[in-house]
């Protein structure tokens, strides 16, 4: 008989309290995204001195009770890589979907505000002018629809320019966020290394770092390695953005390219993610759309101008250029024609001749190749938008599955924790009872001995 039993019981009380704390941490973080469930790993503690031997002469160890060896972080690291890839794809698809939708809204097809309907109104107005070239109202109507057409082209190119400006600003904002995140990852890696060196288990820090890495991947499509071994490496198209505790900041150079370290540092290509998608729209897709719209506009304007110059206005003068391009490259109707519709060269100069107007109206069919190119552009944007929407839904569904699998490994289930609490509570009560029993035993002993 010794005081040893009291120590055993008190250690059991401590261990169950610690386990309860861990369950409490789990319950507290039930709604924390990225939190990994922790489990108390208990182990039996060996007794101190081996005082009693069994019949064979082996030591009989009554044991020293229990303690919590560590709070184990249950994290499905093997799912991280798949989840990261999906996250980058989902980020990319989300940006694609958003921008494609914006472009669609800008085009406003197939509505009365779309370019197609505007073109149709323009051609119809010239067809009507060809029927009534001697009617001033038909003339001014034709110039009005032409103005509308020029404005529509201007709206489209300006809308695309604004969209690009928006994306450029988003690039800047995103770079700021990325630089903050990489800096945090570096700082966390240092804290984790120090904690581990001190023998602690920095579970919460690991969770935080995983969260930040996931965000980094979603934004840039970077590849991450070494989460398990300790030294985390985040590489971006062959260039290490984060290596352990050292971090390379990204900069937006004046020419619009991304550079590492300084505005004149080495160029960095963003392989994917949200930023990758933004770069793709900014540098490739939107300028392409813009130049195709401009090509259509210039083609139409020059075809109309060429025809208009062959005609004569009602004063007998040869047709002036119908459309003008100003210094900023914007199309407008020649102000001469707007102020005096008689200057419109609808035909050979006689009041009733509308041959030129008819030829301009005939561009609708004669120049179908150019207009078909526009329809193809609309269809292409439609494909882009619907494809990115589908891709977003698919990757999000896949991501959800992976996240469910991850959560199934590392997420918190309240019922489970509650059950754990009940069991710990009972164990705690039993340990306390044990302590009380030892107390009684000792009291009895001391009283009897004293008596």
């Amino acid at each position, binding site marked *: 008989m010794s005081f040893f039993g009291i120590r055993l019981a008190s250690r059991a009380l401590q261990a169950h309290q610690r386990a309860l704390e861990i369950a409490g941490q789990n319950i507290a973080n039930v709604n924390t995204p990225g939190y990994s469930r922790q489990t108390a790993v208990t182990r039996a503690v060996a007794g101190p001195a081996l005082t009693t031997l069994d019949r064979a002469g082996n030591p009989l160890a009554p044991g020293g009770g229990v303690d919590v060896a560590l709070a184990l972080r249950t994290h499905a690291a093997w799912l991280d890589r798949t989840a990261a890839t999906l996250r980058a794809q989902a980020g990319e698809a989300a940006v694609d979907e958003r921008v494609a939708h914006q472009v669609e809204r800008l085009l406003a*097809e197939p509505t009365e505000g779309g370019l197609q309907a505007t073109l149709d109104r323009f051609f119809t107005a010239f067809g009507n002018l060809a029927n009534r070239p001697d009617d001033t109202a038909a003339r001014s109507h034709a110039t009005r629809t032409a103005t509308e057409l020029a404005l529509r082209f201007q709206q489209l190119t300006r809308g695309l320019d604004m969209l690009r400006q928006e994306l450029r600003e988003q690039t800047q904002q995103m770079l700021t966020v990325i630089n903050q995140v990489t800096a945090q990852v570096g700082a966390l890696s240092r804290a984790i290394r120090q904690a581990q060196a001190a023998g602690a288990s920095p579970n919460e820090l690991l969770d935080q770092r995983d969260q930040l890495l996931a965000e980094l991947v979603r934004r840039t499509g970077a590849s991450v390695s070494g989460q398990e071994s300790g030294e985390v490496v985040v590489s971006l198209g062959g260039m290490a953005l984060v290596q352990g505790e050292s971090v390379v900041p990204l900069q937006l150079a004046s020419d619009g390219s991304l550079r590492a370290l300084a505005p004149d540092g080495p160029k960095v290509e963003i392989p994917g993610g949200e930023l990758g998608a933004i770069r793709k729209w900014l540098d490739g897709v939107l300028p392409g759309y813009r130049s195709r719209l401009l090509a259509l506009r210039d083609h139409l304007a020059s075809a109309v101008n060429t025809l208009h110059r062959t005609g004569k206005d009602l004063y007998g003068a040869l047709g002036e250029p119908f459309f003008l391009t100003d210094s900023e490259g914007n199309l407008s109707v020649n102000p001469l024609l707007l102020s005096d519709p008689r200057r419109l060269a609808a035909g050979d100069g006689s009041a009733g001749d509308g041959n030129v107007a008819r030829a301009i109206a005939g561009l609708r069919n004669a120049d179908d190749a150019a207009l078909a190119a526009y329809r193809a552009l609309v*269809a292409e944007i439609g494909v882009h938008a619907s494809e990115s929407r589908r891709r977003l839904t698919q990757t999000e569904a896949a991501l959800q599955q992976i996240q469910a699998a991850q959560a199934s490994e590392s997420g918190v289930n309240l019922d489970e924790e509650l059950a754990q609490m009940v069991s710990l509570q009972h164990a705690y009560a039993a340990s306390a009872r044990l302590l009380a029993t030892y107390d009684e035993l000792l009291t009895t002993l001391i009283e009897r001995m004293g008596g």
Partner: protein
Amino acid sequence: MRVTTLQSLQRRIAEILQGQERLEAARDRVSSGRRIQRPSDSPAEIAELLRARTLVADLEQRRATADAFLPHMRASEMALGEIAGAVREIRILALQANNGTISPEQRLTLGEQVQRLRDRVRDLANTRISGRYLFAGTNTLTEPFTAGEPISYTGNTAPIQASLFDGGLLDVSVTGDALLNRRDLAGSGSTDLFQNLFAVETAVRSGDNKQIAAGLTALDEDLHHLLRLRGDMGARIQYVEAMRRRIEEDLLAAKQRQSDLEDVDLAAAILEAGTAETAHEARLLAASPRHRTSLLDYLR
């Protein structure tokens, strides 16, 4: 598989959002009546839809062209008929004058009648419809036949043209020049309708039977020419009317195609919206706390 609290909550939220999106899209289709509201709704069909819309606009334009010119053509035909009628009356008057027993007073009356009819021919040749001279070529805003003697033609020789099908041009007016039936005389100079009318009037007034006979021959020729012009215009009106009917049919077909492409099948859309609504309600119900049990409900 362990089901975790946060995951299950997030999944419910995601499902509810998805359901709302689907419901919203279905309701949009019902309220707008449009199946294709933006290119991505059906990228495979959007180009065809735009083509169909352009075709409809083009056909409407052609129909408008036919509608714009048919009244002019009908008015031209009628005016040509009336001119021919007047010339025929002049011819009858000339025949009456071509008679030895006629008194000078009667000749004077006949001459005046011829003059009035000649003025009528000039008025008819100056017919205007909605501000446009029919027989002036493309000089539609100036009166083509001047008053006085001789009557000169100020219009031009270019007929008004209309395009009813792609690349095809149809003359829809008779120029004053054609109306005049200018022709060379065997001996010297040339003659035309009004010159003949003046010549007949002079001959009737003076009682020169030889000149009246020559005038009658010329008038016969003019009359024949006018009737040919009228018949020709009638044929062209029929052609334009036939074209208009064809355009109308094409337009119907094009509009049907456009509607097939862009309009929603309302019955199906309403049904779809209803289904989406029911599904959404079910999801909301599933997410409600009443249907979520927890160990907490059973622990004291």
